[in-house]
C-alpha cells in the first residue's frame, strides 16, 4: 500500500484579496483591516485592492513570532524589519567580497 506519488499542478498566487489574506492569516477581515490601518501590514495596491503574496508570508511569520515567542505584533514587525535589513546587508557583503576577490 505505497502512497501514490503526490503530483498535482498547483495554482500559485501572486496577489491575494482581502478575504484570501484574512483566511491565510486565520483572522477576520475586520481585524486584518485594523492591522493595515495600524501600519503593521502594507496596504493593498490601490488600483486592484489586492495584497502581495509577500505580505501573506510576512503576516504569517509575524503571527508565529507572537505565538511562539510571545512578542506582540508591533514587536514582530520590528523584528522582521531588522531581519530584512540584515538579509540585505549580508547579500551586499557577499557581493562586495566577490568584487574584491576578482
Amino acid at each position, binding site marked *: *500500500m*505505497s*502512497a501514490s*506519488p*503526490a*503530483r*498535482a*499542478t*498547483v*495554482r*500559485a*498566487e*501572486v*496577489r*491575494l484579496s482581502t478575504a484570501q489574506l484574512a483566511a*491565510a492569516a486565520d483572522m477576520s477581515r475586520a481585524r486584518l483591516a485594523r492591522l493595515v490601518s495600524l501600519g503593521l501590514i502594507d496596504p493593498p*495596491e490601490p*488600483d*486592484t485592492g489586492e495584497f*502581495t*503574496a*509577500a505580505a*501573506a*508570508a510576512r503576516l*504569517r*511569520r509575524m503571527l*508565529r*513570532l507572537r505565538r*511562539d*515567542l510571545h512578542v506582540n505584533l508591533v514587536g514582530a514587525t520590528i*523584528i522582521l524589519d531588522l*531581519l530584512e535589513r*540584515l*538579509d540585505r546587508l*549580508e547579500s551586499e557583503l557577499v557581493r562586495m567580497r566577490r568584487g574584491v576577490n576578482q
Partner: protein
Amino acid sequence: MAVKFRDYYEVLGVPRTATADEIKRAYRQLARKHHPDLQPAAERTRAAERFKEINEAYEVLSDADKRARYDAVGSGYKSGTDFTPPPGSEWRTSTTAGPTEWEDAADFSDFFASLFGRPAGRGGRTRRGGRDGVQVTIPGSDVEAELPVTLQDVLHGGRRRITLEGGRNLEVDIPTGVRDGTILRLAGQGERGVGGGPPGDLFLRMRLIPDPRYRVARDDLEMDLPLWPWQAVLGGQVKIDTPDGTVTLRVPAGTQSGRRLRLRGRGLPRADGRRGDLHAVARIVVPERPSAAERAAYEALRRAAEAPTDQPARDRA
C-alpha cells in the same frame, strides 16, 4: 526500523534534576535563539529542524506526566543509541499506519511517537488504542524556497516541476509577469500539521536567471544594438531580435553610441495588463580588419572630414 533514543534533557541543556521553572526558562531561551523566523533566509531550514527538536523536548519535559513516563523508560539509554519501546507503548499498538505514512505524518520524531503515540493525521486517520496519547494540534510550518525563472517564464508564464524536501513533487504554474524577488504563495503546500493542524504554506521566491541578451530594468528591457559606423552616421533599417520575434528598427541618421531607441510595449508584462518598453542601446562597432577597399574609403573620409579638431569633444564620445 530502528528508533534512536533522544535525550530531551540534553536537547534543552538542563540536568535531569531540573525543576519545571528551569525547564521553562531553558526552553524560552532556546526558542528565542533558534526560532526559524528569527534566522537569516539561508539558515531558516536548518533552524527549523533544531526548533522542532527543542519543541519536542519541551512538549515532554514540561508535562509532569509525560516527563515521568519518559524518565521511567529513558534512564538506561544514552542519546543516539537504539531504543526499544517498552511493551504496551504506542509503537506496538499503532501498527495500522505504514512506515511511509509515519514519516510524513508529523513534526514529532519516531522516537516521540514510540513513547507517546502519533496524533491523528488530517486525512481522517484515527489512532487506535490511544490509551494516553497526546492530543496536540500544531499547524504545519511554512516553507520558503527559491525558484529560478527565465525571461521566457516572465514573458509568457511557465510550468516548473519542483521537488520538495521529503521527495514530494509539485508542478507549479508560474504566472506571467513575475519579477526577480516576486513571491508566489502555494496555499497548504508547506509542511503538514500535527494532530489535525492545518498544513503550512509554500512560498516561492522568484530568482530571475540573467538573460544573455536582454537586461531587465523594472518593467523595461534593454538590449545592445551594435551598429557599423556608416549605419550610425547615415541611418537605416536594421533587423533586431526582440523577445516577440524579429522586427525592423529604423535607426535615425547621426545616432550616437549609447542612444536609446525605444520600442514601445515590447518590455515586461505589468499588473495592469500593459507592457513596459524595450530599449535598444546603440553601440558603434568598428571593423577590426577592414578590407583594402574599406581602408581606402576611411582614408578618403579622413581627408574629407570637416570636423573642427582632430578628435571629437569628450561630451560626444
